[in-house]
């Protein structure tokens, strides 16, 4: 079985984790920019973006894993509008790096007006990148973080509303809204966006609940990730979800669609992403 982990924070993981991922069938990872556990200075962000675009691809390549990343100021640090302005000014130059897929993970944390303002500014950067990027006239791909726990439903609604306000400048097929759960997945999929499910058994989804959602809402435009980072998390939770699906009788083509081909299709809208979808066929 081959996997693409569409959301993982490898800067927080050991090199042994890369080896473990390779041994367990992971061929590519996508790493959104996120919060480091403490607030950084604008200069600290530039260093972080260099780590994402220079160091991590080399570290992953030692194990045959393709490493892709996303650039942004994460919503948890978006309260300080002055800092946000400085960090956002650095983003366009990193968008042209060979392994950067787009803007992310932007979004909301506590659903504040400042977070909303910085979210909209990021979306505008993605739109402005259309004329320069490798995708021609299309806006840069966008990966969106939705808030945690009690803030998730309200935050998801706010995000959908803000995206709607951009009108035809935003193509839902080029946006993935992450960390959906039972109360938000329908909102996201019905609006035409890609959805991501994160397997954090206490604060997000469990493998069993994620498979429930695949069954109830269909595997189309749906990705599963472990979002492993510096907190209590496990890069193999994506695999545990695949095993749960297999245990229920889901077959290889469907498993490949969710755990490999869906991320390949979404990311593949940016020509920098070169992992091709896989089709399995029984030999006569």
């Amino acid at each position, binding site marked *: 079985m081959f996997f693409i982990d569409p959301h993982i924070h490898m800067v927080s993981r050991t090199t042994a984790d890369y080896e473990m991922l390779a041994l367990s069938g992971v061929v590519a990872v996508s790493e959104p920019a996120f919060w480091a556990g403490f607030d950084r200075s604008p200069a600290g962000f530039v260093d972080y973006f260099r780590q994402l675009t220079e160091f991590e691809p080399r570290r992953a390549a030692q194990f045959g894993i393709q490493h892709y990343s996303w650039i942004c100021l994460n919503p948890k640090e978006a309260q300080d509008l002055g800092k946000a302005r400085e960090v956002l000014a650095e983003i366009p130059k990193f968008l042209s790096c060979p392994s950067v897929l787009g803007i992310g993970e932007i979004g909301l944390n506590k659903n504040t007006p400042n977070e909303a303002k910085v979210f909209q500014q990021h979306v505008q950067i993605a739109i402005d990148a259309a004329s320069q990027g490798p995708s021609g006239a299309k806006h840069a791909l966008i990966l969106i973080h939705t808030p945690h726990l009690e803030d998730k439903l309200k935050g998801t609604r706010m995000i959908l509303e803000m995206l709607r306000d951009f009108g035809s400048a935003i193509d839902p097929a080029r946006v993935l809204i992450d960390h959906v759960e*039972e109360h938000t997945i329908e909102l996201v999929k019905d609006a035409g966006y890609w959805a991501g499910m994160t397997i954090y058994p206490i604060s997000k989804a*469990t493998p*069993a*609940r994620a498979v*429930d959602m695949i069954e*109830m809402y269909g595997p189309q435009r749906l990705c599963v990730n472990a979002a492993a980072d510096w907190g209590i998390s496990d890069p193999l939770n994506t695999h545990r979800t695949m095993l749960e699906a297999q245990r229920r009788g889901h077959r290889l083509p469907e498993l490949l669609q969710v755990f490999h081909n869906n991320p390949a299709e979404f990311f593949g809208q940016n020509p920098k992403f070169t992992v091709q979808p896989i089709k399995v066929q029984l030999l006569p």
Partner: protein
Amino acid sequence: MQKSQTSPGDLTAAEVLDTYFLEARARLIELAATLDRIDRAAGSQAVQSDARLQFIQDSLRILQRPQPGRAKAVQELYSLK
């Protein structure tokens, strides 16, 4: 350290709630999803009278009791008499 035979270490009730709320929340969502899963599956009507489902419903009623001893009561519910 020991305050009484029944207090959870040195934790106050508010600290216990802080410590265990998210875990309890996750387990309730998991249970809700499990019941939904049974309802979605083929033959769900046929298992509605299954004693194990009745145990779950009875357990949920025990959880709503206002006094301690709920875990013991749930265990007794699932025990051979």
